[in-house]
């Protein structure tokens, strides 16, 4: 560019102005694009939040329904309609075991080993026959 020419200033001004216009235009377009992206992300977040809230609601609903399904009245009704015949054991049917249950069961299986009167263990020296 001929800077010594008489219209050099005008040419320079026009170039800078054009440059400035392009720069501010791209800044403006960038801002618009950013704002658009922000709104897209915000809306996506909002819909995700709504979805989470909906899942939470469904979960609450399931919890409430599960609790209702497990209510004793409902279970008794199901027992009756499905003819399951389930009943609480009566006191006469229960045998209370005030001892160690494993030992008690072993005693039933091997009475010769687990008698009420325990025999003392006698240790003998090896070799003396």
């Amino acid at each position, binding site marked *: 560019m001929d800077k010594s020419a008489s219209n050099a200033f005008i040419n320079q001004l026009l170039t800078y102005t054009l440059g400035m216009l392009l720069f501010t235009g791209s800044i403006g377009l960038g801002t618009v694009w950013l*704002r658009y992206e*922000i*709104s897209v992300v*915000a*809306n996506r*977040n*909002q819909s995700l939040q709504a979805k989470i809230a909906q899942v*939470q*609601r*469904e979960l*609450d*609903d399931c*919890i*409430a329904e599960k*609790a*209702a399904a*497990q*209510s*004793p*009245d409902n279970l008794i009704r199901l027992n009756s309609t499905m003819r399951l015949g389930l009943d*609480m*054991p*009566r*006191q006469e049917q*229960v*045998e*209370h*075991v*005030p*001892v160690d249950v494993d*030992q*008690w069961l072993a*005693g*039933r299986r091997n*009475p010769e080993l*687990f*008698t*009420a009167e325990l025999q003392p263990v006698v240790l003998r020296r090896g070799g003396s026959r």
Partner: protein
Amino acid sequence: MSKGFASNYRIVCLAAGIGLCFGGVALRLVDLHVWQRGELLKYVEQARRIFVVVNARRGNILDRNGDILATSRPLMEVGLDPSMLRPGDEAKWPELAKMLGITVADIRAAARRSNDGLEDDERAAKPLQWVKLADGIDDTLYEGDKNGHDGILGLKIRGVYGNRVYRRYYPYNSLASHLIGFLGSDGAAATGVERYMDFFLHGENGWRESERNGQKKELAQFQTRDVPPIDGYNIKLTIDMQVQHMIEAELQHIADQFSPLKATIIVSDAQTGALLGLANYPTFNLNDFNKAPIADLRNYAVADVFEPGSTFKIVAISGALNDRLVTPDSAFDVGTSVVDYHGRQLRLPRDDHPFDTLTVAGIISHSSNRGAAELAMLMGDQRFYAYTRAFGFGQKTGFPFGGEVPGMLAAPENWDGLTITRMPMGQSVAATPLQVHYAMTVIADGGVLLRPKLFSEVEDEHGVPVFRFDEVPRRRVIEEATAKTMARLLEGVATAEGTAPQAAIPHFEVAGKTGTSQKVIDGKYSDRHHVASFVGFFPASRPRVVISVIVDDADAHCPSGVAYGNAVAAPSFKRLGEELIQYLDIKPVTDLPLNRFAFAGGPR
């Protein structure tokens, strides 16, 4: 300027015109942006700015095992906007009515509703936009399900839409209704745990400021402030849902058999005072509380008083033993009807079965009115009154809600001449069922009066405890040795020689006391209206549970015509006790011959 298509004059005119137009636009802009700025901004704010409240979720009420007793459930309130309805949609109204469980006439009435009754300015300020048709509609019915069934929205009726609300839901209906309480129709806590623990349960609502577009949709990118909601805490009770169910089933059994006026059963842990269950008959469904008679909402266990009758004899006997005035073997002449007391001749109350002489053990096992009166007279007015207060009568137990009353207990200065002979047998004193229950707990727990414990923990939404409630002893009433002696003496009641063999559970050392108190009808003790009770615990040597069964006015359906404690309440105690033995895994105390036999090999 070179000559062009127009003269200078015309260019000046055109420039002036354009200048004027620009000037006008500029002036209008200044008018809008400077002079009217405030007013217009207010309008824009009003039109675009929104303030959204985000509701916190109310906490759950749980039993001691974490089973949900009260929770919040999302439901829809469906209504219509009368101004948006189209005549063409009227053909769909019958189907809508069927879905909502209402009649077409209801929809028509709602559609006709307007704000005609309002003044002009009120009408302008508050246009009628939505009339509720039905509430409690679940999501599936509103939006349709995944199987292709159309919901209410599928009908595509313009102007019919719903609002989502959280409603309190009680999955077990009437279970523990007098304890849990409920929320009013406005969502405010009304009674019970719901009200007492509302501070922890309700949480803190959140909110956000944002803007909306012309279609009234929120513009998420313009959210300025967002405060998230804080959900309410969960409250864990000491109540056990299964025990509570057993109690309520037993109450129903009593109701079916005797049709009483009312009845109460209380079960608590003997060592901590923690309530495992408390129920009253009649009861009500928490999900339909507004349909129940107001009297059914009353928690009789704490809000009503009755004369405790013979169950009150534990006070006089414990006091006399604790003060070492007597031993279990001390004998009393109970054949005499008149005795001298501080120089006055007092007539003693009548015993159901006359005896000549009874030991202290006999007085309790045969429930002798005269014997109890003589023990109280041995202590004297002041000492007997002090023990009565110490056992918790005449004062509130500290139960946190339900309108607890302190009962009635007059000070000795206000007693008439016969009070010292009548109060030991449970007359001239009025107590709540809970007071009687905790008086018996004094003996079961080794002599200490406990405060009723209903709350176990406060938990956050993840189930992490943020606060734990401990048992609160109120005071020592009797020595531990006295309590043990009393427990042994009370065992005699549930034997063949005692007044309530019906309460005995073999191998489980049932200790308890029957009560049959006459009701005061028209100012006189009635022979046909009684309150029957049995209050006891087991096993006597290491108590696990305390059970109180109190049945009011069951006389009409009793074979003998009188509702005795041993006939009405004691069998319930036994049935309930047997169920609790299995559920709570209560071990028998005495060695069982059967087990020894089994241990040795068992039958072949």
